[in-house]
């Protein structure tokens, strides 16, 4: 019964359009032959990780694969449009700190066991330094990290430990952030 009044909502739609149309274009530009312009009938389109990871925003990021995996529904890095929007919404400037912290935790949690254990930290460190550190140094750094941030002394970092640590980081918000 309200259809007549709803027509004007398009104005609001344009002004506050939630996912910026640009994002959709970016998504589509990755594979114009795969992504239809028409999303009316919910096409089940997934872009493979190879395409996502080759975006200029991600291609130099050592954690690009993890980012794609964490945000993709299938956990393999193949993303639907919604996953894609999610990813850039979490990594946007506006996303709240807790949300970012949660996803950062997921990204650094390489084996998906909801804890950052030593192997996760080693992987993170090796990715960050391109394996430039010696084994001793890596071990030492990982021990130090756990020693610093592990509040309950179980030898690994839970999400709670991670959040406790990350809210004190001065530049977490400014670095965990992608502008698109």
């Amino acid at each position, binding site marked *: 019964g309200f259809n007549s009044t709803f027509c004007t909502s398009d104005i609001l739609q344009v002004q506050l359009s939630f996912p910026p149309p640009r994002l959709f274009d970016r998504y589509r530009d990755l594979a114009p032959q795969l992504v239809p312009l028409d999303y009316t009938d919910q096409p089940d389109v997934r872009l493979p990780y190879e395409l996502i990871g080759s975006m200029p925003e991600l291609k130099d990021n050592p954690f690009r694969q993890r980012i794609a995996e964490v945000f993709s529904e299938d956990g393999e890095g193949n993303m639907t449009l919604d996953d894609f929007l999610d990813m850039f*919404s979490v990594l946007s400037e506006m996303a709240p700190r807790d949300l970012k912290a949660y996803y950062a935790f997921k990204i650094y949690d390489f084996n998906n066991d909801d804890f950052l254990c030593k192997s996760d930290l080693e992987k993170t460190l090796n990715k960050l330094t391109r394996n430039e550190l010696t084994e001793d140094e890596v071990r030492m750094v990982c021990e130090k990290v756990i020693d610093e941030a592990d509040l309950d002394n179980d030898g690994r970092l*839970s999400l709670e430990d991670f959040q406790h640590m990350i809210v004190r980081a*001065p530049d977490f918000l400014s670095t965990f952030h992608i502008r698109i």
Partner: protein
Amino acid sequence: MPSQKKNDIAIRMEDVGIEIDGELDSGSEGKNRKAKASPRAGGRNGKPATTEDEEEEEDQDEAPRKRARKKKASAQDSEEEEEEDDRSVKRKGTKAAGRKKKAVKEEEEEEEEQGKKKKGGKGDAKGKGGKEKGNGKDKKKKNGNSSSSGESGDEDSLSEGEMTSLKEEVEEKKKLIATLRNKPWRMKRRLKLLKECQAFVEEFEGALGKGKGRKLYAYKVMMAKKMIKFNRDFDNFKTACIPWERKIKEVESHFGSSVASYFIFLRWMYGLNLVLFAFMFGLVVLPEVMMGLPYGSIPRKTVPRAEQDRAMDISVLLDFGGYCKYSILFYGFYNDERTIGVLQFRLPLSYLLVGLGIFGYSLMVVIRTMARNSDEGGDGGDDGQFTFAFKMFTSWDYLIGNPETADNKYASITTSFKESIVDEQENQKDENIHLRRFLRVLANFLILCSLGGSGFLIYFVVKRSQEFANLDQDELSWFEKNEVEFVMSLLGLVCPPLFETIAELEEYHPRIALKWQLGRIFALFLGNLYTFLFALFDEVNAKLEKEKSIRNATIWGLNEYYSNYSSYHNTTDIPPPDIHPADVIRGPCWETAVGIEFVKLTVSDIQVTYMTILIGDFLRAMIVRFLNYCWCWDLEAGFPSYGEFDISGNVLGLIFNQGMIWMGAFYAPGLVGLNVLRLLTSMYYQCWAVMSCNVPHERVFKASKSNNFYMGLLLLVLFLSLLPVVYTIMTLPPSFDCGPFSGREQMYNVVMETIENDLPAFIGNIFTYATNPGLILPAVLLMVLAIYYLNATSKNYQNANLELKKKMQMARDEEKNRRNNKENTNQVMQDLEDLLPNRSLLPPAAEEEKPPPEIVLEKGSKSPKVAKRPGAAANGKGVNIQKDVSLAAPNPKAAVTHPPGPRGPSGNARGPPPGPARGRGRGTPPSRR
């Protein structure tokens, strides 16, 4: 088909042990979908109504609210159709039919359920927040569904109460739209909510006649966005305005903050010198050039006849003789006229004030910088509690989007890790204290010996050069003429590496070793500097003697001329003697001589520095790089290898160079300009040399955050260079025939003159009073007292600071310990509990053991796991994990690798959560502790 799917989901959820909310939700949802027209099912009623209402405003009376809700609901019904439309419109598709609605809903639900499953699967992190949210969700659903029950007949009649409630809801929705971006939900849910809210606002704003605010609102949002962008651009612009920031960052990322600290110091020095140059150039050099007499007009501005033949020879010019000597670069060129030009510019006064002002300004800037740096404090090793953790988790900048920057970032992260590792290793090192002490004493002894030796060598050479100075210049070889500079440069080349080698014995942390090294080389250079200065003073005194005789002769000659002229022409109107300016006999002008010495020293220093870099670094790197192909051992890894950047030598070179500038600027105004050029070229040259020919230090160490050690040395040098200049200004008589102060008894007389002639009398009076010892002494006393007081206060603050730091450390340790021990104490408590028959010891624990009643009521008996979960999740910890979990990407991997079974214990083993609810919901104490 949908129902079947739903069942699948339900089953899956049961498997996982989903939290009760989700269970109910999906159940009722499915029912509703199947029978659309029926009102809410009974299962929904089991839900406590109050929780449902929590999100809404409680103070509303019930009746209008329900109506409003109905309205909203009915609106939402059509909105859901509209949502499809919007979607299609936005995605440029064709308009979709309502038939897809079901599918969409299905998907959304699945989405949410998966989220919930995830939540349930996580096992922790399921608390009040999550439940509340779930309820909120339920409410929305309910609205949506009840709308489908066909209550959409009464939208036309709006009472006052409805209006107000509607208004509030509209406001609420608006707020939701505004903050939707920040909500931790999956995109689908957000999109849906947005559509709903927008449609709702659209609809009812129209109904309430409030549609006008929308444009303004949109405009505001747009402006806010623009503002953010503008601020960002402005910040970028500010960063781009810092000179050489990128260069330095690049060096820092490859060579560590210690090397970068040199370049930052160099940049700071360049800024300082630029200001000094502006003073000198704007207030002294430029007025003289613009308004003063031109070259050749008076004797002091003319090359003497005897020197004119060779005045343009390159060798003479390189020695700053000839035309150079009688140019604007040096003190002697300036005229002593009290005012020059149409502006009546008082050049001599300006000269003196600028000469002193340079010191005043430099002192002020150095001290201000030191004070500001000391805020940041610390001697490098940051004492934060999360050094490594921050480095690991926040050092990668996700904004980086180009390979070059990424390479730099990798290098810088590696470097910074290495720096911190060095610090950490130093902390962990245990040592043989006696051996270490002995070695340190030995090292200091050796270094003192070499310092003494080099001091003597310099003294010897200076003495010899004074002898040479008395001989004929043509008989001396090049070496003999430049012996002093040669020896000083040689010492500067040889001693620092020697010291460094000796310092290896001491095994200090590299940062502390750098400070020692700096101090030692400083002492060496200081010795050099002061021997040089004493030699200079000898020279000046000799010149002063010579000048006195010439001056007497000149005055006598003039008197003779005047008396002769007056007796010959019988007139008192005597024209000045008609002698060509080049032929006038003139004094040695010691000021210019001193200025030339300083300029020569500076230039030779530049040459040596640049040649050292060229040969010591570049040539070496070339040889190592290219000869390595045909050499019998590995040059790169073996003996010569590549050079490291010599921080201490470069820093001290810079500091002493600056000392030369400060001392020489008064006698050679051009020196400041020369130095600006030097610093500018050296910035580019050294950056290039470092990046292309050097390798990072073996132990990259973190520079102290405040460059205060460098600044302290600089301050010392500034003070030391202040002494001779002020001494000469105050005591030595200026040359009688050159420079702006010629003809005056003392240089500072120019100030007295100005006060007497140009200022009103009372200022002269004030000045006389102010210089009265009776006033100066109390003033000095007052200052000393103030210094004492301030010092004491700052000490107190420092102590308080330390105390607080200690307390924080203690609190942290204690907290950690408490967390650790809680398990143990808990265990003890439980043992005690077992011992005690009446169990009155732990009433709260007993209460906590059983889950909250409403949950029992709702879920009946699902599984013991579920029963435990809400309790475990109900800890009131401040972290909003619960909310976030709902939007976690459901990860099949996680589900596979960690089946729900073992998760319970693992969740327990994680240790007790903080807060009052510690130890809650734990059947048995974990065996791990």
